[in-house]
């Protein structure tokens, strides 16, 4: 298949995922009726379900999926390490720990700062992991994964402590952050997420070529005109904002950031400039689809989406680990 063919297939996949999310999103409305509603017919109740409940949820899943996939792609290139991922490195965990803490203790009028807390937590965890993983010759896979283990162990302990002591009315919400769910989607959440996506995306677009060069290590990139320290600072902040934003609005969702960039590399090669927009789209489509599975697999019971992405993502991670040199 040519590149254009693959691009068309990707566009078709994303469109199909969004459409199935709207049409087959739950037991409350039959697919045929939802389709009729989308085409302009249907009852006012059906319109409420499709446009006020399902549409924000699908859009939020798409935005969060794009954010996580981009964060994964950026971290992989920046650390010159194919095993990098916001979830495995504990970046999402740092965001979740800060977000659950904020959610558990803040008065209702201040819950608007939960996303900011998630982002600060993600940024803190990113800095800590980078500091731990960096040896005299850059970051090795071993050091990186061990740093991720350390960060994840620490943040899970913090989260458990928060959950154990949180006031009971706040417990379900705090728990949802740790499991990953789009059940809380609303149009205002979508509107809030947008800037957290847009600004880091612009940063990554500007540094896409630098990221491609950094994939072969800092010395190699510096020889081709990259200023590693400056790029590192900005891209880390961008990746932390993307992961933190995702955690803030949907909780912890693993493996989208790991698997999506690798799938896209297989299809479109390693040119990061070409890769990033496709990674964003593929992450959006995959996450919308993962959420659909979470909603329908054991319907009417809803699984946390983080469970679905982990069940699908872990075999992928194992395959990567076995293949890594």
């Amino acid at each position, binding site marked *: 298949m040519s590149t254009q063919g693959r691009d068309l297939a990707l566009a078709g996949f994303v469109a199909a995922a969004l459409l199935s999310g709207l049409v087959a999103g739950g037991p409350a409305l039959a697919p045929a009726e939802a389709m009729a509603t989308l085409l302009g017919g249907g009852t006012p109740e059906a319109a409420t379900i499709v446009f006020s409940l399902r549409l924000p949820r699908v859009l939020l899943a798409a935005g969060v999926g794009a954010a996580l996939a981009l964060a994964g792609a950026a971290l992989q290139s920046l650390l010159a390490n194919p095993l990098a991922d916001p979830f495995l490195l504990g970046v999402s965990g740092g965001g979740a720990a800060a977000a659950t803490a904020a959610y558990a203790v803040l008065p209702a009028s201040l819950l608007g700062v939960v996303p900011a807390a998630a982002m600060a937590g993600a940024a803190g965890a990113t800095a800590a992991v980078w500091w731990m993983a960096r040896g005299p010759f850059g970051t090795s896979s071993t050091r990186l994964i061990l740093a991720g283990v350390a960060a994840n162990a620490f943040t899970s302990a913090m989260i458990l402590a928060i959950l154990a002591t949180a006031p009971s009315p706040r417990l379900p919400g705090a728990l949802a952050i740790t499991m990953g769910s789009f059940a809380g989607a609303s149009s205002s959440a979508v509107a809030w997420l947008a800037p957290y996506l847009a600004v880091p995306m612009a940063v990554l677009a500007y540094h896409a070529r630098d990221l*491609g060069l950094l*994939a072969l290590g800092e010395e190699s990139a510096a*020889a081709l005109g990259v*200023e590693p320290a400056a790029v590192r600072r900005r891209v880390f902040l961008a990746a932390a904002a993307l992961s933190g934003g995702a955690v803030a609005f949907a909780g912890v969702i693993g493996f989208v950031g790991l698997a999506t960039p690798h799938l896209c590399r297989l299809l479109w090669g390693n040119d990061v400039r070409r890769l990033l927009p496709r990674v964003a789209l593929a992450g959006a489509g995959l996450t919308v689809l993962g959420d659909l599975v979470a909603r329908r697999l054991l319907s009417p019971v809803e699984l946390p989406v983080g469970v679905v992405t982990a069940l699908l993502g872990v075999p992928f991670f194992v395959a990567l680990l076995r293949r890594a040199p």
Partner: protein
Amino acid sequence: MTLLRAAALCGGYGGSTVVHDVDLEVEAGTCTAILGPNGAGKSTLLRLLAGILPPTSGAIELLGRPFNRWRRREIAKRLGYLPQWVDFSFPLSVAEVVEQGRAPHLGPWRPPSPADRAAVRRAMDRLGLAPFARRPVRSLSGGERQRVLLARVLATEPLAVLLDEPSAALDVRHQLEFGEVVRDLLRQGTSVVLVVHDWNLGLRLADQLLLLKEGRVVARGGPDALADAALFRSVFGVTVRVVAGDGAVPHIVPVGLS
């Protein structure tokens, strides 16, 4: 024209100084070889000259302007650097790696033009890499990888190339071919700075040779001045015989430990 000038250059890593007080001038279209025992600071000196390691003291300038007044990308357009080792964590293809050589000319937004593609093609052809273009670099041998990275340096079309052990992993045919590539570059007016362990390669290619020991220059000069058995005894602790090589270039034959 003096391309690179270093004066009392010192540098190292994390507080320890590895290179001390090196003075060096690199003229356009000349070849400089840096030699010395393991750990003498050769690679560190090359990194300082390439501008990827900031000096701890001393002065270094490119085309008469100090390094710190150039933008990193402007230096990279003019100085091509071949690292001794690159970690290929991702399955980049040979063509993708060689294309990276054009990055300093492109900046963040501009896509490669036909001229950029032509430079990449020339570099790949020069090193006989065209048949490998789509292969992942990770599947290649050490010597083949070295040729891919050298092609990346050539694709930049810089004013000077700084090569760290460029021929260490090459078989005899590709070593000779490497010598031809260097001579071509010199004919085109490109300067070449080499870190080499192969003394005879250095003697054949270089106009000036720099012998480092413990981070300091202990001898410098043309091939005749450096092909000196006493130097080998004092710097490397080995006995060598200096014999007449091809043409007027002396040839070193190691005999034993002294």
